[in-house]
Each structure stands twice: as structure tokens, then as C-alpha cells.
């Protein structure tokens, strides 16, 4: 690991004062320390924000504001999260392991890097790690990579489970920089790779995620997260689905839907949501909505299986939700 200097920030203004072009924020470290061991990340200085104050607070309108430093395990255990946003708790609990969830933070989860094997291996070219070096994944090991929104420069996927229900919820990410505070929609936080995959998000250098706000969505009490993976636990998603469903009799009033494991960002399914509005709450119309969304899919040579997996996961999750009282 490259040597690094270390500074601990006691509050947000100290964190902003300490950060510069050679420094990286350190929170739980579960991804960053791993990448530093691999030589993928080589910061000259770490600014430790792990112990910045953080809590989960009611916003007064039925929503919740989660501080960036709150650990994943604490968010998943919060009774308000479990009752109002069960798919958020389920997504967190489906990710990583108990030990990792105790270290990993709310902000860090959103800013974790792809697990594409070429990105993680410094002996290989990778346009995300080393712009212009090429993308071996296009013709190489890409079974678990993108089917939507990829570019010739990068076919990586965003690995977060947590971000998937947040995309469906229209969560808002609070950000603080030298220039002041701003709010970024979760669905706008992560970028598609285009011709600059080195940038995962729209954050400017030195900007700090301070909180994630979950807006009120009463029908999210009927929500769920389904994760399809190669083993039963402690594995990244091949495909995951987050959905919330509001029905009136046998008809869909409104649905929220997002996919994980399929693109460079959590994939909000607005096309499917449009198809679901006013549709009958049946397997046929759920599958039709999934097909409408997945019409845009462009599978790579070895990941065509993700399309039917996504279709089935969307259909069965929506059916489960429709059958719930």
C-alpha cells in the first residue's frame, strides 16, 4: 500500500478544510482500504470522516434524513426504515456480510466503486482506472456486467444494493462543498459511463455527501427487494429489483421500480412504471411492463441471461407485492 498522511475531521467544516486534490475521504473503509491494498486507489492523504456526527431523523412530513456516517447495519435496524421503507432495509440486509455492514456507511455505500475484475486488477487495462487504456471486459469476462446504458469505453456495473430502492424512492442526496451545499437526486448522482468512465458520479472533487433524504411515500410500506445472485448470501447481485406497489382493487394506481446489477448506475425503470400505471395487477401486465423496460437492453456476448432474470424478478416481485394486503 502506498504511504499516506492522515487527518481526522471533527466536523463537516474541518473535513472540507482538510480535503484537497491529493486527499480522499475515508469513512468505513470497507471498499477504499481494500482498493488501497490492491493499488487501485493511491491517495497521498486520507481525511477521516467516519466519526462525523450522524443520525436518522424524521423530516416532519413522513420522510427520513439519514446522516452520511450512519452505518449500514444501523439504517437497516431502524424501526422507521423497516416500517416505512421495507425495501431499503431488505436491500441493505442483502448486501455484504454482518461484519462489513457494521463498518460500511450510508455515504460510502453510494460511492463504492465497481467490482469489475479489470478495474480491480492494476496489471490490466481499464478506462475507469486509467482513462484511454482500453476495456478488456467488452470482449472478456463480463458475465456480471452491464446490459443497459453501457458504452464502448466501459461496461461496468454499480454494485450497491442500497442505491436501488433509493433510486425507486426518488431519494435526495445532500452534498457540501467549498462552494456551499446542494441537493442531488439519487437518480442523477451516478453517471452512465459515456466516454468518461473514470467519473462514477456527478460529485465535484472535494464534495462531501452529508445525508440521504428519503421522501415520504406512503405506499412504500408495500415494497420489496429481490436479489438474484450466484449463491444464497454474501455475493453481489446478478440482477436485483426494488419495487413499491400501490393498487386499487385489481388495478395498479402507481408503481416504483428500479434495477440493480444491470448498469453503471442504479436503473430507475420509468418506462415500466408508465406501463404499469392503470394496468391490471396480473402476471401478464407485470411481464409486459418488464419487457417494455428491457427493450432497451443490449446484452454483451456472455450476459444475455440477465435479461430474462430481470424480467422474471420484476414480475414475481410485483406479484408478491400485489398479493399482500
Amino acid at each position, binding site marked *: *500500500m502506498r*504511504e*499516506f*498522511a*492522515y487527518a*481526522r475531521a471533527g466536523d463537516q467544516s474541518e473535513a472540507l478544510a482538510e480535503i484537497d486534490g491529493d486527499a480522499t475521504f*475515508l469513512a468505513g*473503509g*470497507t471498499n477504499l*482500504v*481494500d482498493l488501497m*491494498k490492491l493499488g487501485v486507489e493511491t491517495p497521498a492523504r*486520507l481525511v*477521516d470522516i*467516519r466519526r462525523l456526527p450522524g443520525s436518522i431523523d424524521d423530516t416532519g412530513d413522513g420522510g427520513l434524513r439519514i446522516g452520511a456516517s450512519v452505518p449500514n*447495519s444501523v439504517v*437497516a*435496524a431502524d*424501526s422507521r426504515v*423497516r*416500517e416505512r421503507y*421495507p425495501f431499503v*432495509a*431488505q436491500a441493505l*440486509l*442483502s448486501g*455484504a*456480510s*454482518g*461484519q*462489513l455492514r*457494521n*463498518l460500511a456507511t450510508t455515504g460510502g455505500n453510494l460511492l463504492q466503486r465497481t467490482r469489475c475484475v479489470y478495474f480491480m486488477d492494476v496489471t490490466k487495462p481499464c478506462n475507469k482506472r486509467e482513462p484511454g487504456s482500453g476495456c478488456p471486459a467488452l470482449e472478456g469476462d463480463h458475465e456480471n456486467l452491464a446490459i443497459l446504458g453501457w458504452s464502448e469505453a466501459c461496461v461496468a456495473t454499480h454494485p450497491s444494493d442500497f442505491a436501488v430502492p433509493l433510486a425507486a424512492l426518488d431519494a435526495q442526496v445532500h452534498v457540501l462543498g467549498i462552494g456551499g451545499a446542494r441537493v442531488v437526486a439519487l437518480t442523477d448522482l451516478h453517471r452512465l459511463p459515456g466516454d468518461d468512465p473514470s467519473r462514477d458520479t456527478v460529485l465535484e472533487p472535494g464534495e462531501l455527501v452529508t445525508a440521504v433524504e428519503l421522501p415520504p411515500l406512503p405506499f412504500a410500506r408495500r415494497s420489496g427487494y429481490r436479489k438474484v445472485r450466484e449463491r*444464497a*448470501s*454474501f455475493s453481489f447481485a446478478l440482477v436485483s429489483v426494488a419495487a413499491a406497489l400501490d393498487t386499487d382493487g385489481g388495478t395498479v394506481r402507481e408503481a416504483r421500480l428500479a434495477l440493480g446489477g444491470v448498469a453503471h448506475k442504479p436503473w430507475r425503470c420509468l418506462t415500466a412504471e408508465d406501463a404499469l400505471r392503470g394496468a391490471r395487477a396480473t402476471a401478464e401486465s407485470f411481464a409486459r411492463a418488464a419487457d417494455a423496460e428491457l427493450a432497451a437492453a443490449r446484452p454483451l456476448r456472455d450476459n444475455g441471461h440477465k435479461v430474462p432474470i430481470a424480467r422474471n424478478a420484476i414480475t414475481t416481485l410485483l406479484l408478491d407485492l400485489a398479493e399482500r394486503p
Partner: protein
Amino acid sequence: MARREITLNVNGVEHTLELDTRTTLLDLLRERLGLTGSKKGCDHGQCGACTVLVDGLRVNSCLALAVSHDGAAVTSIEGLAENGGLHPLQRSFIEHDAFQCGYCTPGQVCSAVGMLDEVERGWASHVTGDLTAPVALDDDEIRERMSGNICRCGAYVNIVPAIRAAAE
């Protein structure tokens, strides 16, 4: 070399140490304090052999930078026994023959201690059906909650009953 001084309480004993900022909690325990019970399996947070309790919560000590945990209370496998007697989970692992080579065992035991405390707090898991109901710790729950600890000998068939018995 960038160095920092930190203070840690390890198994009830206060230590003040100057260390390279790159030192993980795992390397601090093993290389500086001679506490070699915590094992370096994968060194990437994937195997759980390095699991210890930090301020009561189980974590992968291989991914925790020691400087970031300045002031913390760490309990490793060496600190679980009390008054000369083994911790109930240590006894249960012996009674159930819950290991073969033993390399993953310190991490398994520390992880199980933290896991049972999480159950006590009412934390749900991925396999918990009703997120708002009390947790019933059956074998599926134990397997899911212990999935961060790998046993290459495949002693799971005895690890699960060992944990179940200790929980009862």
C-alpha cells in the same frame, strides 16, 4: 513514513502505540501486540477469519485502519474468556466439534458473539420474513447471519449447532 500515535483498549488493557498509518487493526493485534488468535485469511474482508469486536460490534479487522479506530475498545478471541473460564461459545464449539483445522475458528467465535448480540437487539436479517416481528433464530437465520465467515474445511454442519446451542 507517515506515523501516528493512537490509544486502544484491547481485551481490557490500554495500549498507546505509534504506528505506520497503513497499519490495520489486524496487523496491530498480530504484529505489535502478539495477539495472533485473529487470523489473516484473505486480507480483503471476504473470509471473516480476522473478525473482532470493536466497541461491541463485529467487524473485519483487516479492513479497519488502526488510526481510524483511535480510542476504541477491541475484543479479540484472546479476550473472550473470563475468570479463567472459556466463553460459552468457545465451550460450545469444542462440545460440538465445530472445526477441523481451526484457522477460521477465532473469527467464527467472535462473529457469533457479535451476531447473537445483534439478535438480542432485534436486528433482522436477509432471511427474516417479517422485518418488524421478533427474530426467531433458526438454522437458516444462523447460516445467513454467519455468511461473512468462511470455513474451508466445511465444518458448517457442526458450527451451526454449536451456535444454536450457545444461543439457547
